[in-house]
């Protein structure tokens, strides 16, 4: 199956003569050199795929180009060079009409500062993408009411954005982005403007929604913990370059660069790693009382393993025994050494 989003050598360089500089250097972009020439490098040679139903989290600090990358793929900014395929079609070649069509049918986006229309109520904000599409008022309001229920804002349909808390406003933003039932869901630091407690709550809510909806997601954040919590795969960006793109546990176990390592150092391994990553080969002496799935996060089964004091069998999705786990390995992950 072909990927839903596929990027090949995407560049975004701000500045008047970006195009010329890029072709002169044949795609070899040195940020410092470009800056001297009056250009700022936003995205530097990004290539990756996002598969259907997958959640790719793009993580980076401010100025790393993560939001720019997202905007290139939604074509809110034009990429300077490269190929961006959405369901096999190059969106950089689309004309304005096709683009509007694409956004109306396939894309939804959530913004950091909510970006709600101040003159419209919750319900009208959510119905807005439907109404610009030409859906009748009755149908769009009906759909919007469903969305209100989905994001848990029932009873606040007629509030104006200014009357809602930050968390509630972002729920409206989420509902609006989902109203047209898009296949692809872009989220640009959706929880960064929220308080830590609300943020945790919204992440849980988001995971619940995703388990129901199963969209293809690109999620941008500057919070590494958030990335670990949500992602199927993480892309870590620095100065416009994707430093590493991998599954969360792989990033923690094998950081590709020193930069990535600095993020992973303080991450509690047991919260990220799965049993699979520390299991040994099949051991005939293993206790036969119970078995543990290789896909469990270590933290969630640690107590069980340590209590048994024996070597335990590890199974895969089909309950075949694929390995064994020694409690001493778990202790090592938990307490280091």
């Amino acid at each position, binding site marked *: 199956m072909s990927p839903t989003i596929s990027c090949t050598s995407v560049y975004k360089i701000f500045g008047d003569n970006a195009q010329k500089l890029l072709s002169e250097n044949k795609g070899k972009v040195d940020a410092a050199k470009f800056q001297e020439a009056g250009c700022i490098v936003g995205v530097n040679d990004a290539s990756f795929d996002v598969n259907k139903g997958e959640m790719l989290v793009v993580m980076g600090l401010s100025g790393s180009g993560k939001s720019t990358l997202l905007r290139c793929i939604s074509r809110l900014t034009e990429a300077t060079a490269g190929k961006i395929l959405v369901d096999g079609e190059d969106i950089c070649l689309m004309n304005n009409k096709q683009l509007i069509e694409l956004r109306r049918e396939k*894309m939804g986006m959530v913004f*950091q*500062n909510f*970006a*709600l229309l101040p*003159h419209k109520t919750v319900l009208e904000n959510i119905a807005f993408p439907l109404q*610009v599409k030409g859906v009748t008022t009755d149908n769009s309001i009906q759909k919007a009411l469903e969305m209100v229920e989905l994001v848990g804002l029932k009873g606040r349909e007629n509030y104006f954005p200014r009357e809602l808390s930050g968390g509630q406003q972002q729920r409206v933003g989420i509902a609006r982005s989902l109203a047209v039932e898009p296949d692809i869901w872009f989220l640009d630091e959706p929880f960064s403007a929220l308080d830590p407690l609300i943020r945790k709550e919204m992440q849980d809510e988001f995971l619940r929604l995703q388990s129901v909806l199963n969209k293809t997601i690109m999620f941008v954040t500057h919070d590494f913990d958030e990335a670990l919590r949500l992602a199927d795969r993480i892309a870590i960006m620095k100065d416009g370059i994707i430093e590493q793109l991998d599954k969360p546990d792989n990033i923690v176990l094998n950081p590709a660069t020193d930069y990535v390592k600095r993020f992973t150092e303080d991450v509690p391994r047991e919260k990220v790693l799965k049993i699979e990553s520390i299991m040994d080969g099949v051991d005939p002496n293993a206790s036969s009382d119970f078995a543990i799935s290789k896909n469990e996060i270590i933290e969630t089964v640690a107590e069980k393993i340590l209590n048994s004091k024996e070597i335990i069998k590890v199974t895969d999705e089909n309950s075949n025994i694929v390995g064994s786990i020694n409690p001493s390995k778990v202790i090592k992950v938990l307490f280091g050494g």
Partner: protein
Amino acid sequence: MDKNYLDTVRNSKPTQFGILLVLFFALYHLVPHNDGNYFWRLPSLLKGIPLAINNVIFSALYDWFPLKVWDPIFEMYEEKAAFREFTKAVSQGLLFLITFVRELLLGGDKIIDVFVSDAWLKENDWLSWPALPWTAGAVGAFILGYQLNGIRLGLLGGIGAVYIAIFGNWVPSIQTLSFVLITTPICFVLGLSFGIWGYLDKKVETALQPVLNVMQTMPQFAYLVPIIALFGLGDHAGSIATIIIATPPMIRNTILGLKRISPEVVEAGLMSGCTKSQLLFKVLIPTARRDILNGVNTVIMQCLAMVVIASFVGAKGLGLNLKIALNSLKIGKAAEAGLCIVIIAVILDRFTKAWANKPVDYFENLTLFQRHRSLVIFATAILVFSIIAFIANGYFDKINYLYIIPLEKGLTIAHYIDAGVDWVWDTFFYTLNTFNKFLLTQVLGPMKKAYLGMPVISTFTLAMGVAYIVGGLRTGLIVGGMLLFIALSEYWDRALITMYMATFAVLMASLNGIIVGSIFSQTERGSRFILSVCDFFETFPSFVYLIPVIFLFNITDTSVLIAAIIYATVPATRYTVWGLKSVPLSLHEAGTMSGVSRMQRWTNIEIPIAFPTIMLGVNQTVVFSLQMVILGALIGTEDLGQIIFGALSRTKDGAGVALTLGVFVSLIAISVDVIVRKWAEDRKKALGLL
């Protein structure tokens, strides 16, 4: 000289200013004052410009693009210039609209006359639209105010209308109102369109900026003669003058409002799949609603500020009455007309502000009657009061007081005002006169002489030097270029007089503003109070300030200057309060914990931080002072304003003279603006406030 020393000079602005001043005074005293000397006065090389402008206007009107137009009276084709036909069409259209609204409210048959033949109308002399009884008008104002913001605003509207009616100013007030009601929507549409265009196209915005700068700093008088030349005399000419004055702030507000929209909102619109027009009308304009409606408020205020000036080109209404009263020095009558303008201004100001801030309720569950309740009540009121007024026809002999109370029959307190004025005059004549004489002989006279005795080379050294020190070579050249344009005309001496008056007014107004603003902004309540006082004074149309001062100080520079100072103190105060309020709380706390006294806080913390903002206020006082100084020509001064005003009676090159001199005044204002704005920006950056 060693290199370090040179570097110190290069980097120390006070040293640079010091050297500049020494240079200025040296030149001032060394350059001989004689006519052939180009260091003293430049030759008037640009003398021909006014006439050239006039020639262009007249050729445009009579020669360019001739069209064949069918003349129904002579039954033949005539050659007429396209531009002339265009201005004619505009004039007639505007006049029709204004008359339409006017007759709708005041009654008459001119509009009916447009649609039927004269003869038929004469035969059927019953055919005339009835006037709206003032009682119904007052109820209408009450209901509208009540709808917008509750009972208090309703009472303001209602009582205001009743006052206007029983003091006999109903007819001129409605004439003025109809003028505002037609002019405002035109300014709104023009301003919104240009604003949107400027927002969408960076090039257009860049091109608009200097044009708007000139339009907003040009004295209103300067437009009058060209307008008469192009459009003739009448209400429509007044309306066009007002449109020229009132549209720029609408454009600016629109651009500002649209630019303030967070980029995310625009992106949200795009990601919702908006087309360009959907983005504009469903996302951008509604989001910028508040700024745009504030623009409408400014437009209305400008319209009212223009009514007297518009009366010079034939607009009827309160402005005309006020002008006539002022011309015959009837202070009481002038004050009453002025008060009516202020009342209308205050009512419209509060109404539009309430409208701008009124939230829209989309989900009210109301019945048809509830939704249109006020409309129904209003319609009923008109009907009831019209019937009462109609029945009363039998009771009143000649004048039906229930329709309209004529000016000469209305209540008046004019003679009390006149008596009061006489009393002040009699009692304080000696004091006032002494003060006036002192000011004229000891301060203003010498100052004027000093300005006029300034060789052109030293003026340029000073102005360009300051611009260079503040903003570098480019700024220096811009300022020099603008001044050169004036210096090469035959009006340099007049411009110097204008500059002397403006300088004096700006200095005094800034001083007042900074002191008043500082005192009141010591407490939260005080600053709120003084800001609302500023709001109140700003609703006064500019010429209203001239009424009391003429009377107290006669027709001298003093009157004009005092009016200018009071008028210009308002922005100085406002910006001072804004500046002081913008000082971060943490700095106040840091100051308190360092144990500063109140005075130390003011001099060491508040003023340095607020100063860039205060300077932007001073910038505004320059524009305000110049406007009032030029307006002073109305009562007689001898600066540029007098000639602009005098151009009204110059047939040969009046339009050219007025436009050229208007541009001169605006160049003076823009020169100051360029320097002050650059300085304030750099200073704010240095303080980390930007």
